[in-house]
């Protein structure tokens, strides 16, 4: 039996508490959910759960929310010769075989400083993590060291490592996550003949398919591992036993930089090696690990043919590159790799190509136009959308060209999560449907903005609208038109009657009578809803029971809506009882008072 020890990570975390290790952050912006830690490891060994829900946190889930995992754990290896002539290797992760040896091989640690945890930045203006320093839509940052805490049988190289991960939501860039490891030597003297490696136990399987057997010994018996020399790409897939987990996952070397200067990969040695599980535990000498890192040969693929001929080896791959001749305290060397997913091999290769393009372009990717500013004004069975023209003057961040092409208008009725495309506009040119752009408003607060009216929607229901902008794409490089994210300007409204102070407009209530679980209710004790319409623009609503007691007071002040909702909770915080209630509405503009009655049946 392969000893996957559940307590291992737990003990490791306990041992590292003083260093504030963090294993709870995973990428969310794209289609990969990769756990990134602040101690040199990626993935979580399938052993970390959300304390709120009890559900497992993703290790490397792809596609996102699919339940298909692809990585047990991975991490950085650094090997070098110090000036004492010692050949040393620091490893972020190894094949741990026992709890007592758990910390051996897990040799990077953050400082105990509160700030030395995972930090997040985003280039999205709408993100709470927005930072002008962000490189991607989701940057994770961490710093860790190999000499802060004593590790059994480990002589540190005196390294400081800055990890940055980059992720995007763009359709061509949402299937990979880029990791950059910047290694600094913080000891005396220099390190020579330095090699960098990425350990990654790639293993594909679906949680639902495996059930209780997920992550146990049989789960690991179906890996197929291939290395493509020309692309510096390792990929792994299930041998077909798991009929749900059909995707591919790759680890690609994108580049190596020395003092910020990119080194041609053909000037370095890139190695692909694998060994059988447990063959590289903490008891393995640094010299043996270094030989693996520095070996220029490549191991055979573990494909169906290899397994048929040699049996199943349960391979653990290592992708290595070097040597960096010298690393002084003034120098830094950076390893850049990407985890790349694909629905099939061709899709994987396409995504790997985009990951390489992202690196080659210094992470300045072709981007969609920004979302327009959007205002949605609800009306009686309608919603009026206004949006500005700002996307039309925004150059593409990659090419600098003004490549705006059109807008798309979307709507969804909550709680439904699916968006419906209501309308598409595009410029009259050689691309798209050439329907033209909508007319702009000539007067009023939205002068110069576009206007769209959505008719026939139901009053009292919650709708969400979004207007996206899309560009022309670039067929010459296979880039489809890019569209801004719907969430960037998604706006919720509840259509209803407009505000009115007309004396002949009676105050209305719906549903009346109210029954539990009406069509307007949403799940939860506070999701009940009874609505009042034909309200003045500014008014106070008083709700009395038949005994004449004031149950609820609501202030209404809305220039666009004459409706108000009540969740059937009294001012004292209690659900109201079945019975007849009287609504009194005082119009603050006219001083007029209107009354109506409604029935609640529970």
């Amino acid at each position, binding site marked *: 039996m392969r000893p996957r020890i559940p307590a291992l990570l737990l003990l490791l975390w306990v041992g590292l508490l003083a260093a504030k290790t963090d294993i709870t952050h995973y990428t969310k912006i794209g289609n990969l959910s990769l756990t990134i830690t602040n101690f040199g490891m990626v993935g979580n060994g399938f052993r970390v759960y959300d304390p709120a829900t009890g559900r497992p946190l993703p290790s490397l889930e792809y596609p996102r929310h699919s339940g298909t995992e692809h990585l047990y754990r991975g991490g950085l290896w650094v090997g070098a010769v110090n000036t*004492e*002539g010692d050949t040393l290797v620091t490893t972020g992760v190894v094949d741990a075989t026992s709890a007592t040896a758990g910390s051996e091989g897990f040799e990077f640690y953050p400082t105990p400083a509160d700030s030395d945890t995972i930090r997040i930045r985003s280039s999205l203006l709408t993100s709470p993590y927005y930072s002008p320093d962000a490189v991607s839509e989701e940057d994770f940052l961490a710093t860790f060291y190999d000499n802060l805490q004593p590790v059994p049988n480990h002589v540190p190289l005196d390294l400081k490592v800055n990890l940055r991960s980059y992720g995007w939501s763009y359709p061509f860039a949402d299937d990979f996550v880029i990791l950059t490891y910047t290694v600094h030597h913080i000891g005396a003297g220099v390190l020579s003949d330095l090699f960098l490696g990425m350990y990654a136990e790639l293993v594909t399987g679906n949680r639902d398919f495996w059930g209780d057997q997920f992550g146990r010994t049989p789960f690991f018996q179906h890996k197929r591992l291939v290395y493509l020399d020309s692309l510096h790409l390792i990929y792994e897939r299930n041998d077909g036993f798991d009929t749900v987990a059909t995707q591919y996952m790759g680890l690609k070397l994108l580049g190596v930089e020395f003092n910020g200067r990119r080194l041609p990969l053909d000037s370095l040695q890139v190695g692909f090696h694998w060994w059988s599980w447990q063959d590289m535990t903490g008891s393995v000498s640094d010299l043996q690990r270094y030989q693996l890192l520095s070996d220029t040969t490549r191991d055979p693929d573990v494909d169906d043919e290899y397994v048929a001929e040699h049996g199943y080896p349960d391979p653990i791959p290592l992708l290595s590159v070097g040597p960096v*001749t010298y690393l002084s305290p003034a120098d830094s060397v950076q390893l850049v790799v990407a985890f790349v997913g694909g629905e099939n091999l061709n899709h994987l290769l396409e995504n790997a190509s985009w990951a390489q393009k992202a690196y080659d372009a210094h992470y300045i990717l072709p981007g969609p136009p920004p979302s327009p500013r959007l205002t949605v004004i609800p009306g009686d069975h309608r919603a009026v959308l206004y949006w500005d023209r700002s996307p039309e003057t925004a150059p593409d961040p990659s090419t600098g060209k003004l490549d705006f092409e059109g807008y798309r208008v979307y709507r969804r009725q909550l709680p439904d999560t699916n968006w419906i495309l209501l309308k598409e506009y595009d410029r009259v040119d050689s691309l798209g449907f050439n329907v033209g752009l909508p007319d702009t408003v000539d007067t009023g607060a939205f002068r110069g903005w576009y206007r769209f009216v959505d008719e026939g929607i139901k009053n009292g229901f919650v709708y969400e609208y979004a207007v996206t902008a899309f560009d022309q794409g670039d067929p010459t490089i296979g880039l489809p038109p890019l569209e801004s994210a719907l969430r960037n300007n998604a706006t919720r409204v509840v259509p209803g009657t407009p505000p009115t102070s007309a004396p002949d407009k009676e105050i209305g209530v719906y549903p009346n009578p109210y029954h539990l679980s009406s069509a307007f209710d949403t799940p939860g004790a506070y999701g009940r809803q009874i609505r009042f319409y034909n309200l003045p623009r500014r008014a106070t609503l008083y709700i009395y029971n038949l005994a004449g007691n004031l149950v609820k007071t609501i202030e209404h002040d809305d220039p666009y809506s004459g409706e108000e909702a009540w969740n059937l909770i009294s001012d004292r915080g209690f659900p109201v009882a079945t019975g007849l209630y009287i609504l009194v509405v005082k119009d603050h503009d006219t001083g007029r008072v209107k009354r109506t009655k409604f029935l609640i049946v529970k």
Partner: protein
Amino acid sequence: MRTGGPILTAFLLTAALLPGCGRKYPLPPVGNAGMPPESSYVRVEGWPEVPVAVQGVRDLFLGRDGFLYVADAQGLRRLYTNGAPAPVTFAGLQAPVAVAQAPDFSLWVVDSALQEIHGFSLSAEPIRQFAIDRWLIARVDTVNGQPDTVWQSIVPGGLTVDDQFRLYLSCRNLDLVLVCDTAGRLLDTLAGPGSGILNVAEPRGLDYWNGAVYVASTGHNWVEALSVDTPRTNLLHLGGTSHAGDTAAGFFRQPVDVSVDTTGAVYVADYGNARVQKFSASGAFIVETRNPDDPTARPLSCATTPDGMTLYIAFHSDQGDWLEKYTRPVRPGGNEGGTP
């Protein structure tokens, strides 16, 4: 009562002025000047772990990069501190005499046969070389009625580099310490011939620390620390008041090399006395180290680690040359209070 006034005044003036009268040079302190006692460095047995043969050692140098460098008849070699040779070759040298390393880890080597200084990158790639025998004019002869310049050749003794990338070259045959930049331009003279504490005679080993160049002035049997900034001042003088040298502690007979750690402690290869002496930054003698097997073995060069805990010494005897490593003993429960 009034008669005591002039007597007291004379006594006070005498007490105040007498200690300075006639003192041409700072005297070496007597004893350890209140410093904690320090035992002699202890040889590390089994070092080098990989045998390294040396012959005709001219310089032993511990670089900023942490490597040990040996300049001998075989050329310049980089060693790991366990003694194993690093796989690197410094090409183009014939008779390297001294080596120094700049803050950017570039390595500078003076070659007596080529009369050149060669610069190498950390990867041992040549980055610059320039002649040193075109700095000084020996004389101008007349050949066929035309003036003919005869350039002054230099017998280099030592080399060091400061934080401003200025190179200091000691010229044994000229009693000079010259200053140049890494482009080979002669900038200044740090010290010239003479008998004072700002002069040198047959200067050899050099080291730089904290604004001063330390010179083993072999002909004077002194070691001087001279300010690199002008006006030149003597920041430390070791070796007594005469040029005769002595076997006593704090005196030298043919000091050939000097090394300084990051606390300013000075290590002097005292060739004629077959020992390496250690002094505090203020010049107090601390301890001497000799070869335990052959007390007559003479140190050719010495190098200290930045923390002063380790000494590398190149020895010479009738048996030839060899390298040894010494460490400072640590008292049980801690060291001796740190390097003075």
